[in-house]
């Protein structure tokens, strides 16, 4: 006699199989490796490079597991431990020279048949593998400052254009308080206010207090616009950071927005944060420059080094094409207000629309008036400050890189607004817009949190965490088997599979495993047994009340269910709150706890019920081992 439906058996078997398969990848420990990437100007990685690296390692007696060229064109060398990895990286760096970026990596060893079905091991948090962690705050105030200053300019220009007389137009004291424009008469003020409202739809124009014969209009940037700007600023900073950190060659860097105005950067395997900090702290600007010579002249100059006196030699980003540009700057990034990618209304090709502020627009207008048909280039200038110690004193050495990001023909006279058309793809357009904004608008960032976790500490934490999980599990398994006998053993199977399924789900959705996450796993193990305790106690009670064994099992599961559900839902509410906390460590703990509660509901109730039914279902019972 069994009241357990067949489909539930099937479900339990399926979940157990799923758990085992998707948890399996975590058994395969990743091994320390060094990954080499070829920089833009260096020859790509091939067999020759591989042999050079392998030979250098052999010569210095560094034992490498494997040295191979991966499918995606990287050179990979694996090592026995992180100490050898470090020496190995140094040897390879010396052997290959500047053209290659050498980075630490943990090379997964999960077999291909597992990765093919999407089964991967859990990514490890920094506290488990070592690395650097930065939390950066983006200075949103700077954005407001720039906007208000630019609007103040624009308003003055508008007054001039419309021939409206005004007394003064200045930013109000206090950031975000807008711009005050004063007039002599009320009529003047009203015409101007109307004109402003029409010309600047993003401004809220209101009449201010009238003092000593002055009539005042206050223009504030609309809150919606400010929010949009703030969101964009973070996006630009994220994009710029991503570009710069890719240059570091760190495998799988984590660059993520946290909260409203913060960015987390986590670089696994990096032990010296100096290089990363330098790149993060870099500042970028833009320069619009006129054509300084033909393509032929540029190629000539690049070859011989003879640059025309009024020109400078630049190289194009990505292609490395030489370009001659005039020494005179037309406009700079400070004068750029906005850059967005869109599609050209006439040709339909991807384009970037640029908006300049009043001063930039005037210079641009002056320049383009006389230069239609000529070309203009945009130079992206990045300044990285390096601190070196010379004679015991710290000296700041700026390193400047300049690249042409766009070189296009001027098709007509323009000033404030213009478009760059004829870009290859929508992606190219959005990249260019991002670069333009990155060079002009990205807000300054401050590092508000910095953690450097030694590689050995990470290894330590893994071992300790593993030990704690195994020991916690073993003790509970023993105690349950001892106290509840056969039912305890069934609960033990369930608890073990709870751990397996929990790990499987965490691996599948890619939850990063951290030390608080490990604590969450251990806590889940301790609390998951609660449902079984409830069921077993209930069955004992029913037996005492004189139920037959089968009836006791049925009543035990039925009556315990409502209690288990209530207890778990309330617990789930608590776990949910933990996941809403902004910071990574607590979030990891909350997510683990939440998944653990859900999996334990299944394993402790449905899975044990299936096993119990399987054991007791078809037999006549006199007693129960509980």
């Amino acid at each position: 006699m069994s009241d357990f439906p067949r489909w539930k058996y099937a479900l339990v078997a399926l979940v157990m199989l799923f758990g085992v398969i998707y948890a399996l990848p975590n058994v395969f420990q990743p091994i320390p490796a060094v990954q080499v990437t070829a920089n833009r100007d260096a020859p790509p990685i091939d067999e020759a490079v591989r042999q050079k690296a392998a030979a250098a390692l052999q010569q210095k007696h560094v034992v490498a597991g494997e040295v191979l060229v991966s499918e995606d064109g990287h050179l990979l060398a694996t090592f026995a431990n992180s100490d050898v990895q470090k020496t190995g990286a140094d040897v390879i760096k010396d052997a290959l020279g500047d053209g290659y970026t050498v980075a630490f990596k943990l090379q997964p060893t999960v077999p291909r048949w597992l990765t093919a079905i999407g089964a991967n091991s859990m990514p490890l948090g920094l506290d488990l593998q070592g690395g650097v962690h930065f939390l950066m705050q983006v200075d949103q105030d700077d954005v407001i400052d720039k906007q208000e200053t630019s609007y103040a300019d624009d308003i003055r220009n508008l007054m001039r254009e419309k021939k409206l007389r005004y007394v003064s137009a200045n930013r109000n004291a206090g950031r975000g308080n807008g711009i005050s424009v004063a007039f002599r008469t009320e009529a003047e003020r009203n015409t101007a206010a109307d004109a402003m409202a029409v010309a600047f739809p993003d401004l809220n124009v209101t009449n201010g207090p009238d003092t000593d014969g002055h009539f005042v209009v206050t223009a504030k940037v609309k809150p919606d616009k400010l929010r949009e700007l703030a969101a964009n600023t973070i996006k630009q900073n994220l994009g710029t950071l991503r570009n710069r950190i890719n240059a570091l060659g760190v495998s799988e860097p984590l660059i993520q927005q946290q909260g409203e105005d913060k960015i987390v950067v986590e670089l696994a395997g990096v032990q010296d944060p100096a290089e990363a900090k330098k790149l993060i702290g870099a500042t970028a600007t833009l320069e619009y420059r006129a054509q300084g010579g033909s393509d032929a002249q540029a190629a000539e100059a690049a070859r011989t080094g003879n640059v025309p006196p009024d020109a400078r030699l630049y190289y194009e980003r990505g292609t490395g094409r030489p370009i001659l540009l005039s020494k005179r700057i037309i406009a700079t990034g400070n004068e750029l207000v906005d850059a967005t990618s869109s599609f050209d209304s006439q040709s339909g090709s991807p384009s970037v629309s640029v908006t300049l502020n009043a001063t930039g627009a005037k210079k641009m207008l002056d320049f383009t008036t006389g230069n239609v048909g000529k070309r203009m280039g945009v130079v992206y200038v990045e300044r990285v400050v390096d601190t070196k110690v010379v004679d015991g004193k710290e000296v700041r050495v700026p390193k400047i890189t300049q690249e042409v990001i766009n070189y296009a023909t001027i098709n007509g006279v323009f000033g404030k607004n213009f478009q760059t058309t004829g870009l290859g793809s929508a992606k190219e357009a959005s990249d260019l817009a991002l670069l333009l904004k990155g060079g002009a608008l990205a807000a300054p960032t401050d590092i508000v949190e910095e953690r450097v976790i030694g590689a050995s500490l990470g290894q330590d934490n893994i071992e300790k965490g593993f030990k704690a999980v195994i020991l916690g599990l073993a003790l509970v398994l023993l105690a349950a088997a001892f106290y509840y006998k056969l039912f305890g053993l069934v609960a033990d199977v369930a608890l073990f599979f709870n751990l397996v399924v929990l790990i499987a789900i965490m691996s599948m959705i890619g939850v990063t495993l951290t030390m608080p996450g490990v604590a969450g796993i251990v806590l889940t193990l301790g609390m998951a047994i609660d449902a079984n305790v409830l069921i077993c106690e209930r069955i004992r009670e029913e037996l005492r009340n004189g139920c037959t064994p089968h009836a006791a099992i049925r009543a035990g599961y039925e009556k315990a269910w409502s209690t288990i559900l209530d207890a778990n839902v309330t617990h789930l509410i608590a776990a949910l709150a933990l996941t809403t906390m902004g910071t990574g460590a607590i979030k990891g703990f909350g997510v683990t706890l939440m998944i653990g509660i859900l999996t334990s509901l299944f394993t402790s109730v449905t899975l044990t019920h299936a096993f119990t039914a399987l054991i007791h279902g078809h037999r006549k019972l006199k007693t129960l081992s509980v």
Partner: protein
Amino acid sequence: MEIFNHDSNIHFLGMRKYTVAIAIFLMVASVALIATKGLNYGLDFTGGVSMVVDYDQPVEIADVRAALEKGGLDHAVVQALGGTREVSIRMQPKDDPAALQSADGKVNLDRIAADVTRTLQAARPDAKLKSRDYVGSEVGAELRSDGTVAAIFVILGIMAYLWIRFERRFAIAAVITEVHDTLVTLGILALVQREFDMTVLASVLAVIGYSINDKVVVFDRIRELFRLARKAEPEEILNRSINNTLSRTIITSLFTGITMGALYFYGGPVVHGFAITMLIGIVVGTLSSIFVASPILLWLGVSKKDLMPVTKENPELARRP
């Protein structure tokens, strides 16, 4: 095997005047402790610089402190991290004046770390820097408010659920006991001055989840017994519910306690605070489930008719003789 006599009928509610008085006293004492001694906030909340230093040979905390003072780093807080060879050093950036001069007002973690390592190695060459952290002060303030919001969210969420699933009085009793458990746990942390860092905050929130679990199990039994009983004397029902679930309450606490013990002894310093807070919370939560939650329920005046499942009135039936 049974540890607890299943026929146990301890008159828990008979002691309610004393147990609740003790609970109130503990709560007041906890608030006083938190207010006067305060929580020993860790780096995550206060901001500052923290380093983990390893020694090859065992080291005395006093020696590390002396070495730092000799190097002019007076205000550093030195703590042992499980064992005698690992110490944590916590300080404010302004405590290392040398490192502040060079940087343009910004904290130079690398410089401070180098200073500390140099100072320590002067006294003991086997000192090795294992990790270093810097947290800005405003980050900590934000975390504190996030934590408070999360705790309030948990308590209100649980209250709403119990209100819907059980009844108003159960929700109120649960929340009052919840607040008691949280305050007493925090009070003990303040008393022993254990470092209160982010993992401990996570643990305190987990304690709320754990202890509500316990209360709900008892409440569930109360509801069941009320519905079954023909003549329902509330005090009698509540007492029977506590006794019936007593074995489960204690066994579950033991099981969870075992795992937290494993975490405490083998999980390493990172999760020490977490495990110890959870252990405190388990004890407090278990005791309050037995001694505090039900008396409150009784005083709130819980009765059989509040808990009967709502049956639809059938006008057809009512008309019948």
